């Protein structure tokens, strides 16, 4: 199976096939050789376009599908980020509640420094605006298959 045409007869036959393929490819006029003409008939059939084709809008449909996939991946990342944020906030609240007693003496001190509250507010706003700025694609719908 893995051998090349090996003996002299096969080499001649291979050369004839290749001559016929080349003649069909280049549209050469070599009518004097009957054996060549027979192979040219086979080569002509092999060069015929296939009976079925892809739809005319195949490329644009696939490109749109890819955009949907990319948007879907981004959305998953966004959901995971929110889930992680939720877990962190939950843990923070848990820690705050657990150690509330030991922080109580510090509370009047923090409240007496309004710039600390302002700084915390700015940090929260910055983080929120960054999270909300994740791009969303307008054609972000459920994926579909090409017909």
């Amino acid at each position: 199976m893995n051998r090349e045409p090996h003996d002299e007869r096969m080499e001649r036959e291979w050369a004839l096939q290749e001559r016929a393929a080349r003649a069909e490819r280049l549209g050469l006029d070599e009518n004097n050789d009957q054996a060549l003409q027979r192979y040219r008939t086979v080569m002509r059939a092999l060069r015929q376009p296939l009976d079925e084709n892809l739809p005319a809008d195949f490329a644009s449909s696939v490109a749109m599908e890819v955009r949907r996939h990319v948007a879907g991946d981004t959305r998953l990342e966004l959901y995971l980020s929110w889930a992680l944020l939720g877990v962190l906030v939950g843990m923070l609240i848990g820690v705050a509640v657990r150690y509330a007693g030991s922080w109580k003496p510090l509370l009047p001190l923090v409240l007496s420094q309004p710039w600390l509250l302002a700084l915390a507010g700015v940090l929260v706003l910055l983080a929120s605006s960054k999270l909300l700025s994740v791009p969303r694609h307008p054609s972000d719908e459920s994926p579909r298959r090409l017909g």
Partner: protein
Amino acid sequence: MSHQDRQLVENVLANAPGAFERLVREYQGLCWHIIYRMVRHPEDARELCQDTFLRVHQHLRQYRYESALKSWIGRVAYTVALRYLERKRIAILDVGEDGDGLDLSDKLSDGFDLEAAYVDSDMAARLHAAIETLPPLQRTVLTLYHLDELSIDDIAGITGLATGTIKSHLFRTRLRLRAQLETAYGVAP
């Protein structure tokens, strides 16, 4: 690897508008020829072509410019089609076909004018039917070589087969097609 291909790949990776659509348009014909020739089912072949380009987009960063882009994409398409045939338990080769072609060569006639006979549409139909009955791998190799005009090296790159194996498939299949036609038209061996 042509300069245009490199530019196209870089544009796709940079998410340039319309770049991926251009890439698909450029190579959809090759992809279709490989997959449709292997699979033969038009609707499944269309879905597999779509899967192929989704994979190409997903893995394009792994493309190292070591082979031509058409070979790389062709290889993805071939692998997708091969997996489909494995799932459907369809053999890609005719297991009974391991002769060296000499017996077929013996049967070929020198006195039959196929050229004149091809004018008959029945002859063309017979020839196409004979091509359709070939095993998936031979059909695909013939189409890539004759219709897409790929070199034997390119086809070897796509299918992962040795160039000698590709040549052997081409030789024996073309010989077989010629013999089948001559037999169909009543030429005595």
